[in-house]
């Protein structure tokens, strides 16, 4: 199976694509319809959509519905605060093949089990934004809106519940400064089920291929740089 080159797209409550830099600065990128159409035309292997779904606000629900009208033929994953309400919305007509979880990883096994029942284990992705600080890994918990320490149990639980994880280098997000591969000193998860994201360069992608990782998810650079997805693959 070939190494996958995906793209991560953040969407705000109004359905606009936004750019994020190092988890700190965000700016509006444009209409999600055009962004998805471009990525589809670029033939990325998959698109990871992060939408503020929590609480199933009317707007988030509307964004989900609007996305289903965009005629793209690229595999889609969706996340950004999936809860039991948005799970019902998503699984009603699963336009999205896979689900991305973050805060539920820490405290909501029930929701994850519910999602496995509805979508299957193959649909389960954990988003792991990380920073390395004082020779320790800290992982972002979106509910707490901060990076926290984790124990070895965290990784064990992750391997049981999730099919794949996306390791997102939060410091490098939105830049081209390179992915911090030091993170692999702390990660206990099957290598062929890991995607990396954040600050990726061509060198990083080559390294990831040599490590036999599942793939890489490009962030903003996909939309700004003129390079061939096919060549990267």
């Amino acid at each position, binding site marked *: *199976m*070939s190494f*996958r080159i995906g793209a991560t797209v953040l969407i705000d409550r109004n359905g606009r694509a936004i750019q994020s830099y190092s988890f700190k600065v965000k700016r509006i990128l444009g209409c999600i319809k055009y962004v998805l159409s471009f990525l*589809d035309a670029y*033939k990325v*292997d998959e698109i990871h959509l992060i939408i503020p779904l929590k609480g199933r606000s009317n707007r988030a629900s509307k964004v989900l519905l609007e996305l*289903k*009208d965009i*005629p*793209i*033929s*690229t*595999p*889609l994953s969706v996340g950004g605060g999936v809860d039991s309400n948005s799970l019902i919305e998503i699984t*009603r*007509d*699963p*336009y999205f*093949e*896979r689900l991305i979880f973050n805060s539920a990883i820490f405290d909501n096994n029930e929701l994850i089990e519910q999602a496995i*029942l*509805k*979508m*299957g*284990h*193959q*649909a389960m992705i954990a988003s792991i934004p990380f920073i390395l600080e004082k020779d320790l890994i800290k992982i972002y918990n979106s509910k707490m809106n901060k990076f926290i320490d984790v124990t070895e149990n965290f990784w064990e639980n992750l391997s049981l519940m999730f*099919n*794949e994880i996306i390791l997102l280098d939060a410091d490098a997000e939105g830049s081209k400064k390179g992915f911090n591969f030091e993170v692999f000193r702390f990660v206990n998860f099957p290598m062929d089920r890991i995607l990396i994201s954040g600050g990726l360069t061509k060198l990083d992608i080559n390294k990831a291929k040599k490590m036999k990782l*599942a*793939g890489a998810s490009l962030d903003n650079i996909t939309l700004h740089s003129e390079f061939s997805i096919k060549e990267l693959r």
Partner: protein
Amino acid sequence: MLVNIIDVGLGNISSIEHWAKNCQHSPKRITNASQLTNDPIIIPGVASAGEYMDRLSGLKLDKEIIRRCQSGQKIIGICLGFQIMTNYSEEDSGVRCLGLLNGTTKYIRDKKTHNGWEDFKIDTREVKHDVFFPKKVTKKVDGRVYFNHELTVELEEDVYTHILSSGIASYAFKNNIFGVQFHPEKSQQTGVDLLNLLI
């Protein structure tokens, strides 16, 4: 051409509709047996076998699909739609399926899943089995297709099939029955080319 898309309230109907429209076909959602026409029938994927078969049976669509299949109507099954074409699936503690293809659907060994892209190639001129491809100018599809599943079909009859190096059946074609384990609707140009080859 019109294509019947089975809609039991489960499955990725919107994606299948987009796919059909991309190929210049007109999708029609089928929510009960009386709505079916004599055009090709697509059974979508992305659901679990137990719940899907329950709903098919509740709407009497299971018997109608079997009847129409036996009378030669083209049936295309995608992912779960392919799996329920077999006699039995291990999913949801065991489910009796449509039995259009002689085989069973089992969990991939070691509880592994299969996600990602694989090469796909078909040339209808090289197919020796009985498969009712429509007469077309284009007879080949060569590209890559997207897989996302944790169960796999194991066939017990000699049909036209392709088994990946991992042992997973990528597709199985028999007469008017076309089952694909991958998602052509999410396989970009290759998916469009495949639908154009099949109908």
